[in-house]
């Protein structure tokens, strides 16, 4: 059955929000207003949005170093996200975490993670909690093709499988870990096959087709919520920017490849679909973009105007009371 129009528009708006957020974060980073590292999610928006649109507020997600999109899709406040990236006191982590460590436990965001694959064991534990709670909550962990190369990946799939935990392993296969091709680094190059060996159902879907992602996620979420155990889904996609915004690592991927993928922009694809189906007019599209841009602008203003943490704030939050 088709996705209703309101949903399609909502998906469009969220993808656009991520796109605009990332474009701005990138711009500000290059201007030097943002410190540290910023890993851009541009090009992969459909994955986070299509998956999270099927989650409840009390479902949990665990993200990775390329996490902005996951967080926005799960409902994070772009103001507090931007403030965190700016290193401000009003940020989600009071400026202690930055771009790679944003979390919002209040809406089930158990945090981004700077260590490749390290989120998988943690997500597995969160899924165990959900299993014990018995409230049909599920956990989704987002990670890349590179994460499939770490031992923690296999240990997590194995444990989730033998304990039949309510978790979705959402692999964003954007074909590279930094400059290393998944086809080189992953024996056989077939990630779902690797996951299937842990005795769980797997799917592979075009991660740049928001409708396919949404439909697949819907189905998978229903299965997992029903207590049928873990599920592995590969989303084939591509990142448009270099590994991160800093130019310390050159982008060695073929230019033609990058250009080809830009033509498969998930947002443009949905936009054309919405126009063709007359669900939105050019006007409507513009209106949404204006609203989104305003929201991002407001987030930046909020971040810029927020105070920096005091140096001594560094001494708080090492331990919980």
């Amino acid at each position, binding site marked *: 059955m088709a996705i209703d129009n309101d949903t399609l528009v909502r998906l469009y708006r969220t993808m656009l929000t991520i796109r605009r957020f990332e474009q701005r974060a990138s711009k500000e980073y290059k201007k030097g207003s943002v410190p540290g590292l910023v890993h851009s999610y541009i090009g992969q928006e459909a994955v986070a949005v299509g998956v999270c649109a099927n989650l409840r507020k009390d479902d*949990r997600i*665990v993200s990775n170093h390329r996490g902005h999109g996951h967080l926005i899709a799960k409902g994070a406040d772009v103001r507090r996200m931007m403030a965190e990236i700016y290193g401000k006191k009003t*940020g*989600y*982590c*009071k*400026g*202690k*975490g930055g771009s790679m*460590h944003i*979390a*919002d*436990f*209040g809406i089930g965001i*158990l*945090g981004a*993670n*700077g*260590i490749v694959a*390290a989120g*998988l*064991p*943690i*997500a*597995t*534990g*969160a*899924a*165990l*909690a*959900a299993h*014990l*709670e018995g409230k049909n909550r599920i*956990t989704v962990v987002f990670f890349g093709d590179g994460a499939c190369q770490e*031992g*923690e990946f296999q*240990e*997590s799939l*194995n*444990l989730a499988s*033998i*304990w039949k935990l309510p978790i979705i392993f959402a692999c964003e296969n954007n074909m590279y870990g930094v400059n290393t091709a998944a086809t080189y680094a992953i024996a056989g190059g077939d990630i779902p096959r690797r996951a299937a060996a842990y005795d769980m159902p797997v799917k592979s879907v075009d991660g740049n087709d928001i409708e396919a992602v949404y439909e697949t996620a819907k189905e998978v979420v229903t299965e997992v919520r029903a207590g049928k155990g873990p599920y592995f889904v590969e989303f084939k996609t591509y990142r448009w920017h270099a590994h991160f915004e800093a130019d310390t690592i050159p982008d060695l991927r073929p230019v033609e490849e990058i250009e080809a993928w830009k033509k498969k922009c998930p947002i443009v694809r949905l936009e054309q679909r919405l126009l063709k189906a007359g669900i939105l007019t050019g006007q409507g599209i513009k209106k949404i973009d204006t609203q989104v841009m305003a929201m991002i602008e407001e987030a930046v203003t909020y971040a810029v105007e927020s105070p920096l943490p005091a140096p001594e704030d560094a001494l*708080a*939050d*090492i*331990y*919980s*009371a």
Partner: protein
Amino acid sequence: MRKIAYAQAALEALQEEFRRDDRIVHMSTDIPIELREEFGEERVRVTPISESVMVGAAIGLAGSGYRAIADIRMATFGFVAMDQMVNQAAKITYMFGGQAKFPILIRMSIGAGMSMAAQHSISPYSMYMNIPGLKIILPATAYDIKGLLKSAIRDNNPVISFEHSTLAPLIGEVPEEEYTVPFGRADIKKEGTDVTVVALSRMVHEALAVAEEVAKQGISVEVIDPRTLVPLDRETIGNSVSKTGRLVVVDEACQTCSAASEIISLIVEDDNIFRRLKAPPKRVCGLDVPIPYSPPMERYVIPSRERISAAVRQVCHS
């Protein structure tokens, strides 16, 4: 008072806390039979031989409202899960700005003395002390392990308990009635006036034996067991050294960058205590050698009573 073994006291701590709070979950590669029988397999879980996901799962559980216990067994196996302990458990509270609590207890057994060689014998607590965000306990008696484990389970932070393999059968007094041992409170196992001996884990018992022996030669030793390394009770140690003017730290771990090094530095950095020092402080530690298998060599690399008493006599007579 009733006397039970160190291992039994530890088990009692878990049993009591499990009864008290049904949101505690235990994971280990072995089947902890008594726990399993009383609390069932949902709460007492056998994991595959996958320490990394065991600790990671403990973090995920804790961040989702549970209290997680991960029993790694040998501390050497813990290195397989080091990313989850060091990069994740220790830092996650801080990186997220304190928005969530992570009540986690990780147990590891340490020490030499059973001819298990270098891959099954190590006392690596100082490595973890260098990582802010972890609390570290080092119980040396049946009484202390029960009270400290209970506090650890109730603590809202990642706590690592390092338990010396040879202490398991050690019998000690443990009251019937419930009690806990607070963190950061050192225990003066024996009072004395001439020299302060800070001893860690199994070395507490060696130090007490030496204290008795040198007492015959008229040396009055004060034996202090910090019991928890993070937080560390500087005050009790500092006051004792201010009183005695002499310090020996006995630590089975390899000497370089040991907890003993830390304790000595904390003491000598303190202007008031430094002025009162009558002799250079001394470390009696494990030699900087991987633990060898054969008993004569193994005995040689860990602190012996001879080395301890020699150090005590030396600081008293220099």
